[in-house]
């Protein structure tokens, strides 16, 4: 049957057009019940005979029908394993998809889960359940009616089978109408409470109704916040420049302050005070109204944590705002929320004496998120646990947002719990691989199929070896070197052939793509692909036949490439060396076996290559890297050191760079529209101001007009007597740069493919497919362009590739952040109950703080300098010269200082590494040195050797 769907739509240009679309109604759609024999069987039926959990409210066997609001707000309830046999109507699904895409995806995941028995009923295309919108009926009312009609149809359809249907809706009007029509309809809370054996499920319910109730009974409760302006008014306001749109960022230090970045202003707009923040939560997109210029203030630069539970009228007078004209920023207030970006938050319950109480306050571990009021009956067990909570709403009358309990992670302070919190807070997919992913793996024992030898080149006779850090199990690169008759040398870069195992579109591929990268925490690795592949079948282990993708170059003795070839191969590595072992083989000139000779040859070539790169303008940057010695049993850190770089590190790096550059050139030519490349934009010159100023103070001139000049001046920047100065300078200049990103070649003009740091016109990642997804894509592209493999649709679709690159950039960034947090967590565990004095250098100088780098551990920390009340010393900050004078002592960038490291418990969930200044001695600011240090290998610092500057 054919129906016309007619509606009126407004286009972006503001024209009104009438859209008429066809709408076919079908009679071959099934009801989805396993009991029903009458329905056509085109879609597999799912709904079973019985609900998993018995309800005292509806003792008979029944299916659940949910309305849109339940789907939108009670997702945690729907995800609970006790809730099964639910009919999700198409009307509901479409509305959810329209309103919130991430929720839509979650519901889709539940539907795909066979155990949950959720069935999607296409009621909009079903002949018996389709309804027309009546004149004067709002689209919401029409949808509610459609849900009721579909429920009624189910009731009639299933009557003879002894199964009923129950409509779950929190909308009173809808419920009344349903009951009037003879249907069973309940509130979610009512229904959940009636379920047997699911007492804790009530905690998962969201406060959907709360918001409405309080707005209705406005009179008897005090409103804390002003009402949000409607979305329509916001749009109008933005158009007429009355409001400005921007992303809200709460301040880390002060819960009463937040910033909004608007396009219209150079500086971030500052929002101060609870009232003006008006229920904006970190990362929401908000509309702000700007105050007249006379009311503009600066950031208060004071630290204020939300400790007062009852304090309702925070006075702005408590926070002295900077009124100095130089620091004044546009100031305003939040008038409306354009888009909430709420997620699930990790944290703890605020300890109370009465754990029987149902209402509790939840403190998120992210300081920028406000406290959340939740209801739970399990407070006694959850009290000292890390838990996950989700925000439901923030009514005007409530100081804190209302939320509900989602799940329990584990006891507070436990290393595993804390690690999981890190992973959750950084949005790292870390759950074990699902069965469908594991099904894609080859069966063990595995051996190379015979036909692979036909397709591939057999290079097992070559002397291939790998060089990696100690303890590395995912070896994805190996090298070989041999002299050719004509005086040239042949160098092979062999990369693990993951693309052979991970076929496009398989569950394994999708999972790897979602993860994007392996994440290396201090004592744990979260693999991108399952362990069988990453540390066995793909790892190029010694003395085992392995599949590889090889880039083979013929090079002249002075490092020029005369010939290049990319091919899939079979290799057999003769040795898996560590950097140190390889270094010994190279240095020991008595050894003349092919392996050592090969390494020496590679090393010679690598030096030439490095020279060429540096001449072209490549930068050698530095960043402090920390390595922990982990106790094998307790997994606690017992030692800490900075990573040491050997000549062999640089050797491997050179050949990887070479292979990456060559592959990038090749795939860019083969697929100009859809190659996955990596670019590093050149930073704006103003980024370097700080560096240039700071170096000038030390009497060193740094020129930054091009990467080549910067490399040159960094090479020659030395302060006599301070060998570490050069490294510091490199660390600081790294901070001035932009982030390197993956991109799809067709999306940008060719000039922008440039890689600033490496000074090459085109670059990509090819050499670590086991731990990076982009490399896998590059492998596929390269395999297609040399004729070993076929392309597939998505690989050639540049919009799709662009989308992938965006995700990969995000994952890469998150992985870096979590790595840093993991290091912080371990340092903190290491320094627990320790207190040491250490040598450090000043990296940056701020108005009331210095950022220092402890050289021995590579730790970085901010030291806030505050004078105690008796000795009122004067702070004098000169931004130009990067200089902070306190009393008579001057602190300058790159100065050497001595700091005291200890761990401080500032709150139950934030344990923090705290550093204090010891030397130079500033009365009232610095602390007394300790001469007793813990740990047997720690040396005693000698403060006398340092002169206060």
């Amino acid at each position, binding site marked *: 049957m*054919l129906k016309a769907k007619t509606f009126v739509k407004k*286009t972006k240009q503001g*024209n009104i*057009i*009438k*859209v*008429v*679309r*066809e*709408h*076919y*109604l*079908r009679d071959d759609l099934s009801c989805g019940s396993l009991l029903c024999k009458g329905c056509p069987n*085109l*879609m597999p039926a799912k709904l079973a005979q019985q609900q998993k959990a018995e309800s005292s409210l509806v003792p008979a066997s029944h299916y659940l029908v949910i309305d849109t609001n339940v789907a939108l707000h009670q997702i945690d309830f729907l995800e609970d394993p006790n809730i099964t046999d639910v009919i999700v109507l*198409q009307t509901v699904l*479409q509305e959810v*998809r*329209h309103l919130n895409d991430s929720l839509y995806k979650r519901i*889709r995941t539940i*539907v795909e889960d066979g155990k949950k028995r959720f069935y*999607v009923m*296409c009621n*909009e*295309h079903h002949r018996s359940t389709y309804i027309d919108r009546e004149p004067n009926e709002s689209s919401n009312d029409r949808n509610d009616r459609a849900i009721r009609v579909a429920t009624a149809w189910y009731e009639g359809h299933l009557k003879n089978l002894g199964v009923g249907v129950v409509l779950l809706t929190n909308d009173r009007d809808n419920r009344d109408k349903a009951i009037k029509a003879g249907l069973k309809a309940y509130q979610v809370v009512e229904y959940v409470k009636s379920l047997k054996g699911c007492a804790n499920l009530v905690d998962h319910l969201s406060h959907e109704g709360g918001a409405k109730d309080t707005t209705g009974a406005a009179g008897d409760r005090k409103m804390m916040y002003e009402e949000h302006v409607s979305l329509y008014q916001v749009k109008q306001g933005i158009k007429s420049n009355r409001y400005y749109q921007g992303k809200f960022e709460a301040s880390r230090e002060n819960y009463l302050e937040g910033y909004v970045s608007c396009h219209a202003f150079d500086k971030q707009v500052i929002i101060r005070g609870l009232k003006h923040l008006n229920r904006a939560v970190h990362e929401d997109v908000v509309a702000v109204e700007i105050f007249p210029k006379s009311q503009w203030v600066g950031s208060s630069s004071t630290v204020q944590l939300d400790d007062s539970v009852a304090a309702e009228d925070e006075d702005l007078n408590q926070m002295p705002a900077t009124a100095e004209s130089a620091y004044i920023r546009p100031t305003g207030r939040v008038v409306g929320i354009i888009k909430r970006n709420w997620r699930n938050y990790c944290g703890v319950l605020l300890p109370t004496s009465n754990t029987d109480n149902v209402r509790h306050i939840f403190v998120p571990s992210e300081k920028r998120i406000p406290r959340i009021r939740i209801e739970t009956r399990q407070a006694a067990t959850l009290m000292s646990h890390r838990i996950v909570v989700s925000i439901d709403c923030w009514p005007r009358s409530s100081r804190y947002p209302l939320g509900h309990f989602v799940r329990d992670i584990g006891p507070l302070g436990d290393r595993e719990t804390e690690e999981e919190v890190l992973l959750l807070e950084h949005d790292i997919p870390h759950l074990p691989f699902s069965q469908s992913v594991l099904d894609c793996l080859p069966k063990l024992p595995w051996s190379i199929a015979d036909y692979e030898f036909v397709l591939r080149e057999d290079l097992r006779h070559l002397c291939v070896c790998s060089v990696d850090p100690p303890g590395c199990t995912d070896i994805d690169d190996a090298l070989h070197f041999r002299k050719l008759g004509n005086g040239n040398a042949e160098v092979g870069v062999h990369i693990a052939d993951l693309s052979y195992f991970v076929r496009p579109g398989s569950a394994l591929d999708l999972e790897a793509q979602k993860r994007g990268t392996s994440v290396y925490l201090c004592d744990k690795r979260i693999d991108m692909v399952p362990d069988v592949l990453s540390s066995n079948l793909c790892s190029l282990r010694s003395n085992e036949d392995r599949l590889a993708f090889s880039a083979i170059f013929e090079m002249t003795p002075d490092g020029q490439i005369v010939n290049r070839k990319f091919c899939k191969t079979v290799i057999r590595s003769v040795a898996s060396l560590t950097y140190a072992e390889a270094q010994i083989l190279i240095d020991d000139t008595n050894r003349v076996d092919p392996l050592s000779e090969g390494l020496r040859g590679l090393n010679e070539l690598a030096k030439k290559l490095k020279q060429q790169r540096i001449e072209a303008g490549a930068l050698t940057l530095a960043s402090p890297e920390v390595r922990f010695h982990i106790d094998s049993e307790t997994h606690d850190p017992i030692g800490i050191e900075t990573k040491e770089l050997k000549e062999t590190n640089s050797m491997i790096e050179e050949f990887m760079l070479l292979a990456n550059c060559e592959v990038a050139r090749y795939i860019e030519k083969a697929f100009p529209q859809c190659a996955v490349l990596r670019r590093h934009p050149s930073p704006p010159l103003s980024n370097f101001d700080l560096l240039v100023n700071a170096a000038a103070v030390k009497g060193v001139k740094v020129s930054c007009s091009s990467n080549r000049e910067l490399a040159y001046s960094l090479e020659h920047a030395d302060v006599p007597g301070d060998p570490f100065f050069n490294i510091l300078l490199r660390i600081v200049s790294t901070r001035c740069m932009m982030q390197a990103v993956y991109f799809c070649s067709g999306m940008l003009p060719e000039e922008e493919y440039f890689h600033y740091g490496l000074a090459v016109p085109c670059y990509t990642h090819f050499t670590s497919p086991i731990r990076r997804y982009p490399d896998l894509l590059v492998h596929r592209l390269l395999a297609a362009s040399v004729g070993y493999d*076929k*392309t*597939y*649709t998505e690989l*050639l*679709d540049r*919009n799709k590739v662009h989308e992938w690159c965006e995700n990969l950039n995000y994952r890469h960034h998150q992985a870096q952040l979590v790595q840093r947090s993991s290091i912080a967590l371990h340092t903190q565990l290491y320094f627990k109950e320790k207190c040491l004095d250490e040598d450090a250098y000043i990296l940056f100088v701020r108005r009331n703080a210095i950022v220092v780098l402890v050289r021995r551990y590579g730790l970085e920390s901010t030291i806030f300098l505050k004078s105690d009340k008796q000795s009122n010393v004067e702070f004098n900050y000169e931004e130009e010269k990067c200089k902070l004078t306190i009393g008579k002592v001057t602190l300058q960038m790159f100065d050497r200082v001595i700091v005291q490291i200890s761990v401080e418990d500032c709150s139950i969930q934030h344990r923090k590494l705290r550093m204090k200044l010891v030397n130079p001695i500033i009365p009232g600011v610095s602390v007394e040195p300790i001469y007793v240090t813990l740990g047997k290998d720690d040396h005693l610092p000698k403060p006398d050797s340092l002169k206060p500057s």
Partner: protein
Amino acid sequence: MASEILSAEGLRCDGRRPQEMRKLKCELGISEGADGSALVEQGYTKVLVSVFGPHECANRNTRNHERAIISCSYNLASFGSAIRKKKMNSDKKSTEVGVMIQNTFEAAVMLEKFPKSQIDIYVQVLQGDGGERCVAINATTLALINAGIPMKDYVCACAATVYQDSVLLDINNLEESSRGPLFMLAVMPRTESIVQLQLDHRLHNDHLDKVVKETIQGCRDIQVLLDRQVKEWTVEAAAAYDIKPRV
């Protein structure tokens, strides 16, 4: 609300399954003045075709002594789409479609039977909701039959796109604008010879065989419907002259 092109339940945005065609309605001989005419509706796409000829070739320069020539003009009615367009005299796109239809029928019409003459085809799209070119070809086939011009076979056309590995046949306007490949095929179903094939955007090689196979099936389905209509019309026309046709 932008609905999904193909839902997980296997329904398209208008409720069809991937290989289902839109409702097809056709009528022959509806234009009085023309030698042959047909109106074909596929869903909300509605095309009227009038055929004049074969008549003596008006222009001496284009006249062919061996066979007849076909001229085709294609026009989209200004009221035919969601946004009213200003009428343009020489619209490049329309000219292109005109030439395409002309080429298609030069392969199907037995032109050698009418040397030195000309056949004029006027295509008017009254309503456009996707697949206008295909509907135009189907309507032209009927109009030529209506005009009694001998052809080798019916020419049936069908459009398709590929979405997530499944082929969607007879696509509507919404599906056309989904950035997927736009594939169009005109076939003479009896011999299964392809007369016209057009592809906009990129289609991956892996999908080509599948798309061609499915689309030919779509064309066959259309041919069955057109054939039924032609036979009905023949019976009616014969009845008017009191002749019993052999069907």
